[in-house]
């Protein structure tokens, strides 16, 4: 293990810190372009190095390592950087002319750094550092439109709940440290397998606190209340970062903690996840059916999608975890792009109202066709990417020896059926309804670049899923190999 293995982290740290001061340099046009250019260089450098290292230098971490450079780390790093790049490219248009462009990009990159640290950490202290590094910039970003009361309200709600979740995680960490005498996940796994009855309740309490703490960011029911308000109030590009980036990073942390450290604990913690998964996907989908605002619809659909991924925790066999990771990959691309589409629409139309989507196909044809494909992908219609990850996930659930596996798969499949109610309904609005105003709306090039890239990825992954399934399985194996060995 050498310093080169940490290139993605180092490049984000260096460029993230450099963006804000660099943005103060120069005059006029140069001043406006310098911060975005540096940010994009940093993000692409990080992504390129993560892909290269993932293929060439991924290794199983040794005992006592606090940060891993295994394939799981690079998998999440890649996914999260793609999200950050999508958000960054869209922000080129979104933030144009804003006086605070440089701090915006700086915060974006530092938050991304927090996310990938979270995915890499094998130590609870580092995990907490990553958690805070991810969260703090997003508070500021959510409140970025400081004269907009909605943005402030969203940021306040988000901040209070996030701070609460951080506090709960710290408490959970302290309990786990008290029980096991270590903050290293692998060392914890060794002690949790042979826990004595007198400290058992503390172990259970720690698990519950972890579930609540991570659950707030993962947006699973019943910790999802802040999501629709925050996504609606925040600048829509930041909605994308929260919905795909921060949320998936929280999933990465949860995978690390639950699959590695808590795995051997002889309590039926899987059943809690089974209940949460079913409730989350059902409530998310049913609530999404009733929304009148596009961002709120996206928010509830992201809650429902979190429910599907939770299946991987409820039936943690290799296939379900691989399916969960594959779904993380697909969901991140689809959901980020869906939010960018919302941004494109929001520039000219009121996004708080789904009626403005009536006949959108005639007004914004490129945006509409992309939304249609992305939504079909989220619903899980083959041959788009979302179908294969759901199929892998549900097959893993059915295959599980745990008694609720089959029910989880049935719930997931039926929910996919319900979800067509709102995904299809929006496509109906865009293509079958007549617009109240038939004028064409300009579609900024940077938004379209993101949308077409996401649509292309969705179709490519769907038509040839083999390498992506293989990648998810490798990442799942890298995760499981650190956990308890049967």
């Amino acid at each position: 293990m050498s310093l080169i293995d940490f290139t993605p982290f180092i490049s984000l740290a260096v460029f993230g810190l450099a963006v804000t001061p660099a943005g103060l340099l120069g005059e006029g046009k140069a001043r406006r372009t310098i911060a975005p250019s540096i940010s994009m260089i940093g993000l692409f450098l990080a992504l390129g190095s993560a892909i290269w290292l993932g293929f060439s230098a991924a290794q199983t971490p040794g005992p006592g390592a606090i940060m891993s450079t295994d394939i799981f780390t690079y998998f999440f790093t890649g996914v999260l950087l793609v999200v950050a790049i999508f958000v960054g490219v869209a922000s080129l248009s979104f933030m144009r002319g804003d006086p605070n462009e440089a701090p915006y990009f700086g915060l974006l990159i530092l938050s991304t750094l927090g996310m990938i640290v979270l995915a890499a950490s094998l130590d609870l202290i580092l995990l907490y550092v990553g958690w805070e590094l991810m969260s703090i910039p997003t508070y500021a970003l959510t409140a970025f439109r400081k004269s907009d009361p909605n943005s402030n309200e969203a940021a306040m709600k988000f901040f209070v709940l996030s701070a609460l979740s951080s506090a709960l995680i710290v408490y959970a960490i302290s309990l786990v440290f008290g029980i096991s005498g270590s903050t290293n996940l692998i060392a914890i796994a060794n002690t949790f397998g042979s826990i004595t009855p007198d400290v058992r309740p503390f172990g259970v309490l720690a698990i519950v606190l972890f579930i609540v703490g991570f659950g707030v960011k993962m947006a699973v029911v019943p910790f999802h209340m802040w999501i629709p308000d925050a996504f609606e109030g925040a600048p829509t590009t930041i909605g994308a970062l929260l919905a795909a980036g921060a949320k998936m990073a929280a999933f990465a942390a949860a995978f690390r903690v639950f699959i590695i450290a808590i795995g051997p604990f002889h309590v039926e913690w899987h059943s809690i996840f089974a209940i949460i998964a079913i409730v989350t996907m059902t409530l998310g989908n049913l609530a999404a059916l009733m929304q009148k605002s596009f961002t709120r619809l996206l928010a509830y659909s992201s809650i429902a999608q979190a429910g599907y991924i939770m299946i991987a925790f409820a039936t943690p066999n290799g296939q379900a975890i691989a399916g969960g990771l594959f779904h993380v990959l697909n969901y991140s691309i689809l959901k980020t792009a869906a939010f960018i589409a919302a941004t494109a629409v929001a520039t000219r139309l009121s996004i708080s109202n789904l009626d403005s989507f009536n006949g959108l196909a005639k007004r914004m044809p490129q945006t509409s066709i992309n939304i249609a494909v992305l939504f079909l992908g989220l619903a899980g219609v083959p041959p788009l990417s979302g179908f294969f990850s759901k199929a892998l996930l549900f097959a893993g659930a059915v295959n599980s020896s745990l008694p609720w596996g089959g029910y989880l798969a049935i719930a997931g499949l039926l929910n996919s059926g319900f979800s067509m109610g709102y995904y299809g309904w929006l496509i109906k609005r865009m293509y079958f309804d007549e617009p109240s105003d038939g004028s064409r709306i300009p579609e900024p090039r940077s938004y379209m670049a993101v949308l077409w890239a996401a649509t292309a990825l969705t179709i490519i992954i769907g038509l040839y899923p083999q390498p992506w399934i293989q990648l998810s399985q490798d990442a799942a194996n890298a995760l499981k190999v650190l956990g308890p060995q049967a």
Partner: protein
Amino acid sequence: MFGILTVAIFLPAAMGLPVYVLGRRNIRLARLLGVGTTAAELVVTLIILGVFSYGIGGFQLAEKVDWASSFGLTYHVALDGISLPLLLIATILSFLAAYGSTDLIKEREPEYYALFLLFETGIIGVFTSLDLILFYVFWEIVLVPMFFFVGIWGGPRKKYASMKFLIFTYTGSVIMLFGFLAVYAWTSSQGNPTFDYTELVGRVGGLALPLQLAASIATFVGFAVKLPIVPFHTWLPDAHVEAPAPVSVLLAGLLLKMGGYGLIRFNLLFFPAATNVLWPYFAAIGLVTMIYGASVAIVQRDLKRMIAMTSINHMGYVLLGAFTLNGIGLSGAVFQMFNHALAIGILFLMSGYIHEHAGTRNIDELTGLRGKMPLTVTLLVLGSMAAMAVPGLSNFISEYFVIQGALRASYFFAIAIVAPALTVGYFLWMLRRVVMTPGVGARNEISLHSLAILAAFLIPLFVLGAYPGPLLDSIIRATTNPLAPGGP
């Protein structure tokens, strides 16, 4: 490796984008390329018919390539005596419907023909794939164009009909997917997980009965929604009536056959032990569907709605015939799908032409139509004869096979004979008003090439009615052998 079946499957989809892009500049080019591709597809199918060996059972022209081996997925396509007639009918009907569209579809044509070609790829993929997930992929590819067809080019209640169609069939599909995943999960618990049909057919026999029943019922629901059976049929009248006439041809002629084909391939022949338990129930549902469809058709006033209900009636034969568990009933079911597609195709397309020329589809208002459209009315009589299964047309052979097979399975199914009687009843009632009344009004015939398209539907029915020959023979060969060990 890849071969002619791959060409047959992907040729239309590959032409979809050129049709859209070039068609936006020139509408005539969109029509020409759209119809031309379906014609080329028909030629490819005729070549396949030429190289197919009729004397033997089993799968032919197989192509198998790894697709996603980590998940047990293969690209595996092949043909046998069950899928061959369906491939043929898919390409014939696509060509005739595309050609008919040139008269009946007047707006957003580039999009229409591009989606049409995507639909054709989906439907041919469904009839040829031998991997459960590949099958499911094509199965769902069909859904999307159909949703847009009804939603964009449909009648007054198109939005309602398209959403209802989407939600019904998509929910059915995901339930079916559960059946597939359950089988897959079982194979992976045995080691060597696979979705490959030919491999699974040999292994599924070892699946425990309760799991086999669950998987069988789950797939049955998915196929039954498409077929459709009572009580999952309510999407059908709405979608058929709202869809433009050529799309109704595709819906009734091909989309419903997906349900029938799936039932035979992925339910009946796939879960032998479950089928031995469930067949009386499934066959009884088929019987109910036949009689229900016919009874409801009697009271329809809208010509197109009546024809839509005829579909429910005729697809009930497929379900009944398949689950008689004998070769004669099953081959009747397969042949019935072929014949029904043509008979319903001519009737739906004709209802579109009549609506356009006479301004109404109400049977009462169509009284005296023969004064206006004598040639069309003649074809209407011939098409109705096909739907009534008059001897001499191949529909008679298939319905006879189904009822004969049903009688061999149980004398209880003798009730099935009520269905053809009812069918004859409502068709004659309709013909009495529309045709057997004094002609009214000046002559306003549809164009000659429209008449030629309509007549083309009838030719195979008359030819196969007189000489069912190798087609029926290959169906019988394909359906008799697999049933032999488990069947009664």
